[in-house]
């Protein structure tokens, strides 16, 4: 067992974990953060994308021990409970999901993309989402959602202020 201490969605956590435990397993099984999903487990699909120190990574391709001392943000920590991040809002508005399985990873990668490049072209969006697979939408509405979020000035630091009625 190895001792790890890290920040997940703003909260300090510490645990003893097996060195072979993947970050995605740690998030889901130890912390109950099941918003982050496993789509392929071969590091292809991007469904497990989270931010590690503010940059997107595939959490099935990182060991929990490698996150020791670092800061993780999952889809669950993107906005205050009860509110949506501007990117989540844009996915909702643009109908950028059908089954929704790829969505947590798509949104985390799209936020990263705009952090790097606040005004991407359509090509840059498609390239920037190259590591995220969607079996349903055909990607068009996902691209539109990212364009809409870019137009609204979405970044990690600006969760949408508007509350969503439950």
């Amino acid at each position, binding site marked *: 067992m190895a001792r790890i201490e890290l920040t997940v969605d703003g909260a300090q956590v510490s645990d003893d974990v097996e060195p*072979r435990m993947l970050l995605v397993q740690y998030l889901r099984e130890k912390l109950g953060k099941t918003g982050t999903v496993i789509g392929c487990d071969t*590091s292809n699909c991007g469904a497990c994308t989270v931010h590690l120190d503010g940059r*997107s990574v595939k959490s099935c391709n990182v060991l929990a021990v490698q996150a020791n001392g670092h800061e993780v943000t999952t889809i669950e920590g993107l906005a205050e409970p009860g509110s949506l991040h501007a990117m989540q809002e844009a996915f909702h508005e643009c109908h950028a999901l059908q089954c929704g399985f790829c969505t947590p990873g798509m949104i985390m990668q799209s936020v990263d993309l705009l952090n790097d490049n606040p005004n991407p072209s359509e090509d840059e969006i498609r390239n920037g989402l190259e590591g995220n697979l969607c079996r349903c939408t055909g990607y068009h509405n996902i691209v539109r959602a990212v364009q809409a979020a870019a137009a609204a000035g979405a970044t990690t630091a600006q969760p949408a202020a508007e509350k969503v009625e439950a």
Partner: protein
Amino acid sequence: MIPAKFDYLAATSVEEALSALSQSDDAKVIAGGQSLLPVLRMRLNAPDLLVDIGGIDTLKEIRDDGDSIVIGAMAPYYEILANDAVKNSLGLLHKAISEVADPQIRHRGTLGGALVHADPAGDCGAPVLALDGELVIAGQGGERTVAAVDFFEDLFTTAVGEDELLTHIRIPKYDGWGSNYQKFVRVAHQWPIVAVGAAVKTDGGTISEARIGLVNMGSTALRARATEQALVGREATVDGVREACDLAAEGANPPSDLNGDADYRRHLATVLTRRAVLAAAGG
């Protein structure tokens, strides 16, 4: 899929990593882990000990050293891409790295890790070879420097010994050279079926020097030396370079697989070399 059990050491210095490596018979170094973790998860390898060098900050530096650029083995692709000296003086490497996998993997993956992994289909080996890179390898007896041409020994096999650690990559600057990287894939996010990287120096429309690296054309990264020599003095036009580029696969021993047989790859290498050379010569 979960890796088999292993012990784990988060090394805080090169010395600590080397001493751990020398004390274990079956240790593996993990840098960014973007190639190693899939291997461990599929249980194609199951080392007793993983030595994590991710916490050794001295291995993350990217330094302009006058005539050359020095890249630490733990520098992630993302940081290399953001570095202006790399962009300006090592255009070919910069272009190849921008084609590695996807953004998430470029955030974690490292040039050093990819070079030691030595997958002949990896994007980075051939550019480092073509640009006459040097690899600095640390062992308990001290440091040694190996030229890229002696570094890649075979499929997934390099000059780095079991008790050693690649610490830095040093590549001479190619200021004023044009470069281009042609990666041929069927779908986005695939290993190249073949890729060709070219760095070309031109003088008034005539090629004066050329470096060509071939990806996935044999058991290691390769250099198309016959083409490099034949290009000297040629006009940078389709007809001017055609004959020289037709030699691109000379001496190569490409694999045959579902994506294409060896002859197809040889043909592809000549076509991609022509495209890469012309694009590089054009700026």
